[in-house]
């Protein structure tokens, strides 16, 4: 069995993700985790905290799409790291209320 590159070379992946900063406007924090998804396929889960302004309903999609494209174009998780990308977005206020450790 061949280990996906994103799992075999976590340090390299971490370096590339660190180099993605600075992110497009609206991003407060980016966290990620590499693990199998429900189907058993290797995946990378991005947990992205947005400013409350960027998370407003009227502009949210514009921001989330720009951020998703930004990361996918530079990292190319599927082709370069053999990882299927999942992107989840929360507002700063939502995370402040939840204090979810995975997002801190």
């Amino acid at each position, binding site marked *: 069995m061949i280990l996906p590159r994103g799992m075999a070379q976590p340090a390299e992946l971490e370096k590339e993700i660190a180099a993605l900063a600075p992110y497009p406007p609206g991003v407060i924090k980016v966290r990620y985790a590499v693990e199998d*998804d429900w*189907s058993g396929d290797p995946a990378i889960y991005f947990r992205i905290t947005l400013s409350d302004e960027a998370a407003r309903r009227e502009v949210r999609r514009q921001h989330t799409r720009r951020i998703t494209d930004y990361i996918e174009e530079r990292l190319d998780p599927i082709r370069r790291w053999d990882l299927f990308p999942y992107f*989840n977005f929360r507002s700063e206020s939502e995370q402040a209320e939840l204090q979810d450790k995975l997002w801190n």
Partner: protein
Amino acid sequence: MAYNDDLLEHARFLAQLNPTAPKQVDLRRSVSAAYYSLSHLLTTDAAQNWKNANQRYRFARLFEHSQMRSCASRIVSRPLPSDPAQVSPANDLVFVAKTFCKLQGERHTADYDGTKVWTQSEAADLIDIAEDAIAAWSRIRTRELAQDFLLDLLGSRQ
């Protein structure tokens, strides 16, 4: 209104309930409905190619979610065509396939992972993505590559 439109509208309704104190059950069902909106659209479109209209509902039920996921996953990882005229529709199909895989994964988490806490922003974003994928599908649905995709969703070609 088509059933998949109803599902998307229902997803939005659930995601926006109780804006100051959203309930997890509403957000989870919202994410699930967003996935089924796209999934149902694809299987219904595929069933339209079945000649006997009375059997189309049964035909649509032949599709298996895991098989559809495998097919969509292959589309996502294959290279784009070299013909510039085909790049835009191919990009639309990749977006539909990628969104299908993503929403199916999120649906599974929403339905089975009780430890995951959902927020309105997360649910709303997934609904937006489903809506974008449905728009992308509407641009390509009659093209050969989209029709091939529908057939492939049923099972691998030999």
